[in-house]
């Protein structure tokens, strides 16, 4: 094989506030993981190996959201060390489940939950990495999809744009031949506003999409909400449904994702 081999790129994996599920997706790549290890030098991945090489790194994957002053400092350091920075998962791209605190009183939590609240240093909000530093690519999901992660890694290695479409879950649902749970069963489903990537798993098992991949590239929430109401969700339930994994991400996107280019 005469593949030209310039300096082997280095990969670093970092974790902020998160459950580790997305990093596990990387370890889950089993077969491909060996091929990956042959193509990059895994320089920093505490979850997989205790040997840590210092930066700079060619590609950094960041899992987790910024929830402490230390996270906020670390993410700047990480950014400074990584040529390309990719965030993985709902925590890193939208704040994650822990961003439910954004709608509550963190002081009260601290007092109620911890025996020594003064030991706890935390920010009032859980925020995505992109709220702190520039991010080159955001990979969605809770957890991320293994196939999409490999696509992002191979695309990075080949110097091309990853094939990660930002249309709705409905596209995948119909391609898969699933019977629409909203139309045929009256089940609330966030598929029409949710970013594709999971392969429309939930509807394939008769459940509505929970929106774990966050908003698609083209969201019209006011058009969907009456449907959720019709299918039995009242206002608080609708709010919970939309905010479970991606905090306020759905509330803040609007329908017209750009200006129409007129010829």
């Amino acid at each position, binding site marked *: *094989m*005469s*593949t030209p081999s310039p300096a082997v790129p280095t990969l670093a994996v970092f974790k902020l506030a998160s459950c580790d599920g997305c990093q596990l997706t990387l370890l889950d790549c089993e077969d*491909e993981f060996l*091929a*990956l290890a*042959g*193509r990059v030098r895994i320089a920093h991945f505490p979850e997989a190996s205790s040997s840590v090489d210092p930066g700079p790194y060619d590609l950094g994957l960041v899992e987790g959201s910024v929830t402490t002053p230390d996270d906020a400092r670390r993410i700047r350091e990480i950014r400074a060390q990584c040529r390309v920075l990719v965030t993985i998962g709902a925590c890193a791209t939208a704040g994650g489940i822990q961003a439910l605190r954004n709608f509550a009183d963190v002081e009260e939590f601290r007092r109620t939950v911890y025996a020594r609240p003064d030991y706890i240093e935390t920010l009032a909000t859980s925020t995505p990495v992109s709220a702190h530093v520039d991010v080159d690519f955001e990979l969605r999901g809770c957890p991320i999809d293994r196939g999409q992660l*490999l*696509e992002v*890694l*191979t*695309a990075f*290695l*080949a110097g*091309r744009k990853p*094939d990660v*479409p*930002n*249309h*709705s879950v*409905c*596209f995948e649902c*119909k*391609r*898969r*031949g*699933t*019977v*629409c749970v*909203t*139309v*045929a*069963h009256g089940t609330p*489903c966030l*598929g*029409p*506003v949710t970013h594709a990537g999971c392969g429309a798993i939930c509807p394939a098992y*008769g459940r509505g999409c929970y929106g774990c991949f966050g908003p698609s*590239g*083209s969201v*019209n929430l*006011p*058009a*969907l909400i009456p*449907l959720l109401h019709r299918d039995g969700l009242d206002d608080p339930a609708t709010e919970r449904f939309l905010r479970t994994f991606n905090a306020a991400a759905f509330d803040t996107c609007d*329908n*017209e*994702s*750009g*200006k*129409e*280019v007129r010829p």
Partner: protein
Amino acid sequence: MSERRTTAVLDRTGLDALVQVLRARGRTVIGPTVRDGAVVLADLATAEELPFGWGTEVEAGRYRLVPRADGAAFAHTTGPQSWKAFLHPEREKVWDADRTADGRLSVAEAPRARPSYAFLGVRPCDLRAVAIQDRVLAGGRYQDRGYRERRAGAFLIAAECTEPGATCFCVSMGSGPGADAGFDLALTELVDETGHRFHVRAGSDAGDELLAEVPHRPAEPETQAAARDAVDAARERMGRAMPPVDLRTLLGDSLEADRWDDVAARCLTCGNCTMVCPTCFCTTTEEITDLTGDHAERWQRWDSCFDLDFSYLHGGPVRASARSRYRQWLTHKLSTWYEQFGSSGCVGCGRCITWCPVGIDITEEASALHDELAARLRRHDQEGENGRKESEP
């Protein structure tokens, strides 16, 4: 050319034999069956799997299965898939590229599975849709090889409509409820005091020949008349209709209509309408590489004009607004399709109405555009009239 096409009557045993003969000939028989609360299209092992005793109640954005006392198998309306799922699959590999030992690239067309299909229960509107996709994907200069191969070998058994749904409007599109061409066999299901039976007409030599192998009886005049009457009655019971105007010019004259803003406010841009539409054919192609960098593949997969990436040029999507994307869909279906392919792109199957989560209705949108245009023309005339009056001495 054959002298005269066979007409015959099959009972349920005959229908089962039909499926068995097709399977014995190595065909994959695809037909309607019940799954997950809907009538879907799937590989059938026997005619028993057909949706006997199931009907459907549909409305814009709503679909429900309902039991039928008469035990009919073809009394349901269009489900979430169409035959394009088999002839024009959602994802297909186009080619493989490999780096050879001496560092060169070798590119090879991807080997394709070539199932030999028999489609059982193709509605007349869907026969027309297949003919339209033939024109798009296998006609003209740029042909989709995979489609052409799968289509050339497919055996089509139509099922004429006797129970149109509330979202059907094939009559106003001239594509149903009777089957006139493009089939090998056409069934008309009858359930009455004479029993449960299927009137069959052959439409090709292959159809004649297959029928000869299946137990049947000659079509007596009463059954023939009953089949004709049932289809004629369906003609009168269409759930919807397109406005009786020249849709082609209507859409052409409506590019700046206000109605597009109205529908854009309701549209989720979810793409369901294009995915379920039996004529929508759009695909995108994507290259993937593997981790070694020595192997690449090109895949084609269904895409839609509701996808922002669909019109992405350097710097951004050309059709960013929901308004422009909905307008593209309707204008292509009903108007520019003529310029491209010589017919309408809509066959009136009603799928886009039923399976749109928010129930946006193509016939209602066309009527609203017509009303808006008519009002605009009236205002225009009025102004012209007033202008003339004012300028009179």
